[in-house]
């Protein structure tokens, strides 16, 4: 993504430059938060996870191997932390993330909200392996290769999980639609 800039900022952090740290947080907090939110399904858990992710990132930044992409390293920590939170999670709160476009009318906005809720609910029914690849592909916009790097899986496994996850989502959404 911004490999050279990231490398410069990481070096800045290693020499104690807090502005470099601030820029890295600013650059990655939104994607990390969004990935965590889609894995965990609520804002509070996602905020907790994001906070912990960055504390870990900067605690271990001296160990980061600059041969690898910084974003892959951050995402790996983010996914691991989100999955850790899944294990000790509290009861799920109802999702309310249908942020409709300002151009939409009230009826369209309501539809968007309903669809988002349905999709996120279906996402939460997937197991962690499937949900993780779907989030990295569709929320974080990663390629098969990048997902493989982040999860340290062969591309073949990434594809297999992603395709199966989509099939399951399709079935889940169809079943839900049939019920209503």
């Amino acid at each position, binding site marked *: 993504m911004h490999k050279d800039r990231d490398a410069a900022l990481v070096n800045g952090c*290693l020499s104690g430059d807090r502005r470099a*740290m601030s820029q890295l947080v600013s650059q990655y907090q939104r994607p990390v938060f969004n990935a965590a939110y889609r894995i965990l399904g609520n804002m509070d858990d996602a905020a907790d996870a994001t906070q912990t992710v960055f504390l870990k990132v900067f605690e271990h930044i001296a160990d980061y191997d600059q041969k690898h992409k910084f974003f892959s390293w951050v995402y790996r920590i983010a996914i691991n932390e989100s999955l850790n939170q899944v294990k000790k999670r509290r009861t799920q709160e109802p999702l309310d993330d249908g942020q409709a476009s300002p151009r939409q009318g009230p009826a369209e906005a309501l539809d968007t909200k309903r669809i*988002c809720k349905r999709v996120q609910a279906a996402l939460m029914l997937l197991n962690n392996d499937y949900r993780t690849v779907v989030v990295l592909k569709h929320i974080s916009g990663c390629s098969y290769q990048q997902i493989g790097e982040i999860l340290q899986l062969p591309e073949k496994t990434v594809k297999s999980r992603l395709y199966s996850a989509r099939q399951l989502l399709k079935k889940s959404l169809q079943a839900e639609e049939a019920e209503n």
Partner: protein
Amino acid sequence: MNEQNHTARTPVDQRILQLLNSSIDGEINVVDQQELDHLLATSQSTRDLNDELREVTRALDELPEIIPPKYLQDTIERQVRLPVENKGAENKPGDFGSWINANWLRTGFAVAAGVLLTVGVYEMGSGPIPAGDSASMSGTIGSNSVNSQKGELLDRINLESELFSGQVELRTHNDLFTLNVELESDGASELVIKFAGRGLEFESADSPQDAADTVSVIDGSIHLANNGEQNYVLNLRRVPGTDYPESLGLEFFANSQLIQQSELRISHSKSK
């Protein structure tokens, strides 16, 4: 792979799924695309499957981006210690850190702190806390540093009205709950923090400003009477043996009128 591994597919199905998914993701080569084009042109079931999968992926792609809470970046930055800073913070022989580690000196500081707190209690007790109400108060009041950033952030409420503004932040560390309160008002205002029956007891309060600004603890509520700009740090402690607290009630008054009621949430803490 696991319980979610759905029904077995024929090799042909698998091949079609692979081609469709690769095409949807834009990661298909020319030869495979030609094979898929042929299948789509000749098979209705492949076309149906293609439509369904594209609908699912479109729905996923259209999930809105969620804006993180505004406090998040600030909270992260305040907590991060960079490696160089950490090294600087480590104790070196001969520096103040190694002195403070000496047991006898630590004991000396504890005694000094105790004297300061006692003075604080005396000043507070002789001032704003009405006689008879002091029985409701359990804890100490010091008067030095404010705006403690220690502990995990649980919740934050921002206040914006014509009469006053500010914010109240709740943090926790072990069984201690710290409220950082920043208030600014044009005239007389009051913040009441209700903790009675919520498994919490008053521990201490800090405020560096003058004595005209008062903190009093009455019947399970902390009352902050405010005029102008004021910061407070209030500490509450969990009552042993009670259920984990869920929330704190806040009431904001201006000119003796209730302006806003809010709840600071505790229960989502992972330290449960």
